[in-house]
Every structure is written in C-alpha cells, then in structure tokens.
C-alpha cells in the first residue's frame, strides 16, 4: 500500500533533521497563527483561490523568496564544505549529502527562484502595462501558480521523506539512471521539474495570448513597453522549449519506472541523446530567465534617466534575434563530449553571435542615461551593478564559446562563475530593480531607500567576493560539485574569500527582509500612484490598483503612454460602465495539491494512489468545465466608491 516507502525514508543525518524540523515548525507556526487570528477564510477567499494577476504575482514572489532563502542556505552549506573538506578532513557532510545539496541548490535557484521571480513580475505588471484588466485565462493562471508551488514542495519534502538527487541539476544519465541511482532522489528531481514545468508552459500560452489579444485600444505592437516585448519573446521560447523538457523527463521517468532502454548504455540506449535534449530545452531556458530581466531594466533605466528608452526599434529586433539564436546554440554545453570539429565550430560561432544583440541592448541602456537626468535611487543602482557584473559574465561566456578554450574550462568553477555572473547579475539584480521599482505600486507604501542601498552594496560586494575568485579557481583546475581537495592544489585561500562573499550576500538578503519590515512600520504611503514619475500605464492607477485595474480602459497614442497623458491637461470624464471580472476558483489549489499527491505516489511507487489522484485531477478539470459561476460584474457604484 505504501509502495517502497518505509520508515527508513525518514532517517537522515543531523543537518537534514534540523532543516526538516525547522521547515515543519515554520509550517506549523504559520498554521497556528492563521488559526489563532481566524484568517483561514480570508486566506482562502483573498489569496489562495484568487485569479487576480496581481495577487498571483505576489504569491509567486513570496514562494520564490522562501525558495531563495533555501537556495542561499544550500549555497552557504557548499561554501562551508569547501573550506572545511581539505586534505585529511572530509568536511562536515558526506559527499553524497553534498551532491544532493548542490543539485537542490541548482534546481531551486533556476526553477523556483529564477522562473518564479520572473513569472511573478510578469504576472503583476504585464496586464497593467497593456491596459488590460487581467490575463487571457485567469483560472489557468491560478493553476500555473499552484503547479509551480506543488513542484517546489517536492524539494522541501525530500528533506523529510527520502532523499534528493545527487546528480547535478541537469541529472545526466547514466548517473541518473536506475543502475547508478536506484533510490528515490532522481524521482523527486523528475517530478519537481515535470510538474512545475507544466505550470510554466501553461503560463507561456496564457501570457502569449494576453499580449496578442488584450492590449488596450491604440496600443499597437510597436507602442508596447519593452518589458511587454521581452515577455512576449520569453513566452514564445517557453512554448517551444518546455515541451522538449516534458518529453525528456518523460523518457527518463519511463527508463526508471518501466525499464525502457532510452538513455541506458545497453540494449541500444544513448545517454548522449538525453544531454542533447535536456540542453535543447536548457539553453532557451536561460534566455527565458534573462529576457524579462532585460525588459525590467528597459523600464527602470528610462524612468530613472527621465528620458525615453534609446533605440526602441533596435531593442525589439535585438530581443527577437536573441530569441531565434537561443534555439541553435545548445551544443555549447557539451563541446567536450567529442562531437568533432565542424559541429563544435558551428555551435561555437552561433553562440558568440548572441553577444552582438546583447551588447546592443547594453549600449542602448547606457545611451538612455546619456544626457538624461539620472536618479541614483535603488532601482538604478541595481542596473549599474548589472551593467558591470553581467557584462563581465557575458565576456567570459564568449570566451567559453570557443570550443578549444572550453576544453580547459568546461565543468570548472570558471563556468560556475560565468553563469552566476549572468544569472545573479542579470536575473536577480533585474528582479531586485523591478522589485524596488514596483513595490510601491503593489503595496501602496514606499520601501526604505537607505536600507535598500545598503542591501545593494552588500549584494554587489558579496557577489564579487564570492564569484571572482571562482574564475581563478577554474583556471587552477577546480571542478564544479567538488566536495574535497588536497591542500597542494592551492584552492583553499580562494574558497575562503568566496565564503566571505557568501556571508556578505546573506547580509544583503537579510537587509532586504529587514527593509520590508521597516517599510511596513514607517508606512510612507504612496498616495499619488506615481512616485517615480513613470512613463507606462501601470503608474496611472492607484497604489495598489483596484482589483479591476482600470475604471476606464485607457486609450493609447504613443510609446510611453502615461508620460504623454501627464503632459496633456485633464481629460473629459468618460461615463463608467459595469466591469466584467472573472470569479475566484479553487481549481488551482485542488490541482496543485492533487499533482503533488500524484508525483509523491509515483516517486514511492504507490501506483493505486497515483491512479486515484490522476482520476480526481481529471474530475476536477471536468467539474471546472461544467462550472457556471465563472464571472461576475462590478457595479458602477462600486467603481465610483474606489475612485
């Protein structure tokens, strides 16, 4: 009845116990507080079942912050092992545990921090920037969020029941096959990504249709904010790339579950096929992560330079050149697999071409600042940090795109430093720029600027200290996922410096949490709805916006429509109409919970439970199809009251 789940699955070492218990206590504390303050009904009605894109966006970001905490914790654990496990000492955790932490760190950061933060911000901002009231498929939006959260649960639950994969975040076979990883770890990995991947794909479709179909009157494609263009290109990549991931994970699952011979080294299987497929998804994935961040910077730089974004058209072209190229470079992730000179050369050249449109975007941002009036508030500081870190990271990327050079740095800490430079410098700094920029819009209060600047300082200096040494370590022969080394290698001092950097990053993150608390206490309200002198439509609403976004759907005549609207005198009051809104629904929560049960059952081979939860999931979908109360109307009186 319990499949292969036994009591042994609950046995762990003391660190895992501590982590698991603190998680359980955290969850229990939340449940107790909610019960004590009688907030369950509120939580269910206002948040869990909401189809309001703004709230869904906020929930994505909350979950991502929790996962960011875990991801940083994993990183600190790795840094600690790497300053401890030298020579005779084997460190404080076993190699197997270390590999699980490394794998969990990668999966958490890419899927549940990177994707979560980006999709969260897109959710919050996109409909507002195109003058829409919600996304094209609001219930589907909720389902996507809950699938995302369900996926995240697997990583957390693996701390308590069973183990996680120790294969690296891309889980190459044969290591991830049945023969070398017979336990449940890789199965957890498979289901965490498979389920959240479905959520991502559904969001991709949702946002794609939203942008095409729900722009307000006058918002032609070439008048959309660059953030919207970036999101549009991102969703195209999502729709093409994520099904590849679904297929690949499916094949590894059948290899492990029903003994297919797809990625085995016997009976005709081919592990190299997996590597090709996973990177055919994996490379577009990293562009999916970075393009929205580029979009955020396009917004921030223009507003904080008090100048229109330089080269709008080229920025759009550059986005699509990047989108197209991102699909034909995947082999650069495995130049060292022995494909031969011509294949390697082709992919190397394709890879380096991406540097051109990316560089174009950077120069366009810089020239937006040129002869503007640059306000060095926190959002702009994040941009400056990005400009330095990301450009350095991009440079090292081009270095590695030459196959012969890659042979000496592949899978070393040089590679690790490169991708952290572009992901932290790009995606994370981009998110923080957007976060500090849009926080007042969605909460109605201003963030404490002083703490924000200190947090930035710690993140930037922490990042540089934590990752610049890694470039050098790569040149010294230090590979990634290394849990032990000899002192003669000379690695230790650099790992020690990196450890200090990690601590600084922790302080930076801690300051950001402090900033939220202090800002709530200070309660400096944003009463105008436009604290930064913004240029795009979201700033025309109140802070926070009413749940229907706009009392009147705006009509747009140019780029930066709100900037133009502010120049014109007060317009005639147009008559108000009833607003048609989608109703809340629990289908997202149910599907999320059931998908978790399904995945858990599949991992532990409780097939009766898997089938049952699958049937109930289909049942939920059918029930949703028959649901009559999916929409309601907001009366004109209520709109007048909100004004």
């Amino acid at each position, binding site marked *: 009845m319990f499949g292969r789940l036994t009591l042994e699955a609950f046995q762990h070492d003391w660190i895992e116990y501590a982590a698991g218990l603190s998680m359980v206590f955290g969850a229990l504390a939340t449940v107790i507080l909610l019960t004590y303050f009688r907030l369950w009904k509120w939580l269910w009605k206002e948040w869990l079942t909401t189809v309001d894109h703004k709230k869904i966006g906020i929930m994505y970001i909350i979950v991502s912050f929790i996962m960011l905490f875990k991801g940083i914790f994993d990183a600190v654990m790795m840094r600690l092992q790497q300053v401890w496990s030298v020579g005779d000492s084997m460190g404080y955790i076993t190699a197997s545990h270390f590999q699980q932490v490394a794998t969990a760190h990668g999966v958490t950061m890419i899927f549940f921090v990177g994707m979560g933060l980006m999709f969260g911000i897109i959710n919050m901002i996109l409909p507002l920037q195109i003058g829409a009231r919600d996304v094209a498929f609001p219930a589907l939006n909720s389902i996507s969020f809950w699938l995302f959260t369900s996926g995240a649960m697997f990583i957390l639950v693996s701390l308590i029941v069973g183990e996680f994969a120790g294969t690296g975040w891309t889980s190459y076979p044969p290591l991830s096959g049945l023969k070398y990883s017979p336990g449940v770890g890789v199965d957890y990995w498979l289901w965490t990504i498979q389920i959240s991947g479905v959520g991502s794909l559904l969001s991709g479709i949702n946002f794609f249709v939203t942008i095409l179909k729900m722009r307000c009157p006058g918002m032609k494609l070439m008048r959309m904010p660059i953030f919207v263009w970036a999101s549009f290109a991102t969703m195209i990549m999502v729709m093409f790339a994520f099904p590849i991931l679904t297929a690949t994970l499916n094949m590894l699952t059948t290899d492990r579950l029903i003994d297919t011979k*797809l990625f085995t080294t016997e009976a005709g299987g081919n592990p190299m096929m997996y590597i090709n497929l996973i990177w*055919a998804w994996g490379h577009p994935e990293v562009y999916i992560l970075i393009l929205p961040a580029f979009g955020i910077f396009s917004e921030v730089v223009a507003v904080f330079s008090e100048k229109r974004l330089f080269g709008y058209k080229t920025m759009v072209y550059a986005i699509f050149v990047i989108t197209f190229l991102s699909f034909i470079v995947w082999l650069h992730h495995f130049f060292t697999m022995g494909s031969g000179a011509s294949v390697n050369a082709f992919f190397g050249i394709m890879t380096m071409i991406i540097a051109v449109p990316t560089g174009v975007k950077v120069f366009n941002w810089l020239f937006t600042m040129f002869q503007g009036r640059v306000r060095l508030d926190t959002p702009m500081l994040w941009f400056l940090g990005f400009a330095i870190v990301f450009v350095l990271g991009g440079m090292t990327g081009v270095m590695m795109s030459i196959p012969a050079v890659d042979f000496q740095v592949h899978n070393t800490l040089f590679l690790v430093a490169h991708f952290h430079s572009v992901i932290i410098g790009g995606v994370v700094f981009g998110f923080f720029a957007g976060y500090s920029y849009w926080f007042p819009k969605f909460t109605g209060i201003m963030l404490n600027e002083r703490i924000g600047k200190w947090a930035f300082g710690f993140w930037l200096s922490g990042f540089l200290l934590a990752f610049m040494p890694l470039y050098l370590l790569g040149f010294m022969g230090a590979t990634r996922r290394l849990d032990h080394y000899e002192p003669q290698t000379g690695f230790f001092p650099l790992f020690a410096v990196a450890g200090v950097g990690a601590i600084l990053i922790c302080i930076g993150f801690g300051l950001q949490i402090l900033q939220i608390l202090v800002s709530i206490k200070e309660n400096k309200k944003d009463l105008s709805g436009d604290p930064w002198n913004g240029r795009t439509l979201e700033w025309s609403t109140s802070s926070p916006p009413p749940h229907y976004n706009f009392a009147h759907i705006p009509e747009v005549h140019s780029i930066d429509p709100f900037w133009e609207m502010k120049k014109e005198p007060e317009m005639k009051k147009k008559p108000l109409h009833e607003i048609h809104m989608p109703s809340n629904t629990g289908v997202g929560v149910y599907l999320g919970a059931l998908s978790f049960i399904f995945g858990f059952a599949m991992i532990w081979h409780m097939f009766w439970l898997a089938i049952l939860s699958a049937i109930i999931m289909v049942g939920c979908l059918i029930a949703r199809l028959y649901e009559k109360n999916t929409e309601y109307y907001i009366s004109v009186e209520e709109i007048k009251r909100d004004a």
Partner: protein
Amino acid sequence: MFAAFFAAYAVLKDGVNSGPSGKDLFNLPYALIETFVLLFAALTSGIGSIFVHRRKRKRAITFFLITALLGLGFLSMEWIELSDWIQRGYSWKFSAFLSTFFTIIGTHAFHVFFAILWVFVFLIPLFFRQITDTDIRRLSCLRMFWQFIFIVWVCIFNIVYLIGAL
C-alpha cells in the same frame, strides 16, 4: 514535444539489441487502416463542428459520437497489435528501438484517449440542453485537437512505420 520524441526515435531506432527492427515487426497495411480510421475520426469531428456552429444538436452529437467510436477503434487496433508483440517478448524493455517506438505510440495514444474522453465530457450536457456559445468554442477546439492527433499520426506513419519498414 512530439518533435523531441521523434528526434529520440531517429537516434535510437537502430538500437535493436539483436532483436527485431521495424522491418520485422511493422505491418504496413494494418497501419494504413489505422491511418484511415483516424482520418475519418478527424473528418467526422470537423463535420460535427460545422453542425455545432449551425446549432443542429442531434447531428452534432451523432457525428462527434462517431468520432469517439472511431477513436476507440483506433486504440483497439493499436492494443491488439502491441499486446501481440509484448506477448512475444518484444516489449519496451527489450531494446532502445522498442522503447522509443512504444514511447511515441504510447504518447500519441494517450492523447487520443483524452480526445475521446473529452468528446463525452462535452457531449453529455448537450443531451439535456441546447447548444451555447461556450459549447461552440469548446467543440471547435476539440475538433482542432482531433485534427492535430491525425496530423501527428501521419508523421508517425511516415517516419516510424514507412521509413522503418523499408
């Protein structure tokens, strides 16, 4: 997604593990009949969709039911063919070729199964009430799904069966 499976098939189809290959196992006339069954299923879903637009309830129901029946027929034919192979010992466990074959056919069949299920999900209310705009939208989407299933099958027939058997 199917593109990724086809790519895997192209790479793995020669991994026969000293066992049978497509040439030994594929029955082309049988596969051709399956193709026509699906073709007519897609066709009847199209006709049913036209009747839905014209709000002709009884005819719409009839044609979509035929679609579902044809779909069931298709699945039965696949079941018969594949269970025979499995009984002879040639299941997905045997070789990479068989693994990837079963993966493609299985994924496609899984989609056909849902298309059949969805015919019933959408049709049952129509027994009790008139056609609404929502029904028109949903059944149009379902019709497109059947057409998609057929197109994928055409690819399977060509890439897997035809090229494999020659």
